């Protein structure tokens, strides 16, 4: 059992939810993805291998991943929630193309130190940040 599966099982137990084969299959497929995937896209991938898993199950299971901090929900301003892997992944910013919807990730030391300073100034307990830059990628500028 990998670490992610352990986290999921512990979370399910804590919440009084059942460990089901479908939930662990959805986790497997989700962990095999890269980048930012919507519930529809994930469902399309899952359907190829497991035709009996419905969209609602995928969507609800994604919410469980978010609650157990295996996934993070990201919103790129087009009204569609996307999910990225969150386990052992450093907080990062996104640069998003408003033309094709593609998103790149970046890590900025400068932003992280600025964030620490602001958090300290207001005596807050840090809970992460959200940094998105919107624009047009090279291909969409043409």
């Amino acid at each position, binding site marked *: 059992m990998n670490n992610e599966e352990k986290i999921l099982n512990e979370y399910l137990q804590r919440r009084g939810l059942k460990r089901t084969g479908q939930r662990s299959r959805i986790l497997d497929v989700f962990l095999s993805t890269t980048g930012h995937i919507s519930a529809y896209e994930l469902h399309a991938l899952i359907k190829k291998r497991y035709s009996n898993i419905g969209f609602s199950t995928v969507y609800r299971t994604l919410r469980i991943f978010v609650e157990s901090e295996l996934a993070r929900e990201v*919103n790129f*301003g087009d009204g569609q929630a996307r999910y990225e892997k969150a386990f052992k992944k450093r907080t990062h*910013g996104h*640069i998003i*193309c*408003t033309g094709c919807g593609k998103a*790149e990730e*970046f890590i*900025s030391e*400068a*932003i992280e130190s*600025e*964030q620490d300073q*602001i*958090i300290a100034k*207001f*005596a*807050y*307990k*840090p*809970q*992460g*940040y*959200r*940094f*998105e*830059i*919107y*624009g*047009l*990628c*090279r291909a969409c*500028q043409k």
Partner: protein
Amino acid sequence: MATFDAEAIAAAFGKYLKRKNLKVTAERLNILAEALATEGHFEADDLLVILRKKNRKTSRATIYRTLVILAEGGFLRKICLGDRAAQFEKSTGQPRHDHLICLGCGTKFEFVLPELPDLQDRLCRQFGFAKSDYCFQIFGLCADCAAAKNE
């Protein structure tokens, strides 16, 4: 707080609507006027309450759509706060700033990072992007919420 001319902004909004082939309606102008008269952050429902009190009948959908138009035209700024309702604020009369948000009680503080524009320009060059807008929020727990969580 810098003063600004609500009439001039309304005129500019009128021009913007015409350019976008949208109608200049009394409802849209009313929504702009109320948005400009509101200090701080507000959401669509706040405006609905204000307009209803003044007996100006406007539907929630009209308010919401107009706020989106105003944000696209740069007359208002949209603040996205994750799973909460979208909030708006005036974009005139105050410099662009960002927010520190308490995830417990929703309290917000404004801050300005002078280095942010340079940093974004660098990142855009690195990825070959033409920048249009950005969204930056820092999340934390305020002292009260952090204490409550530990109890």
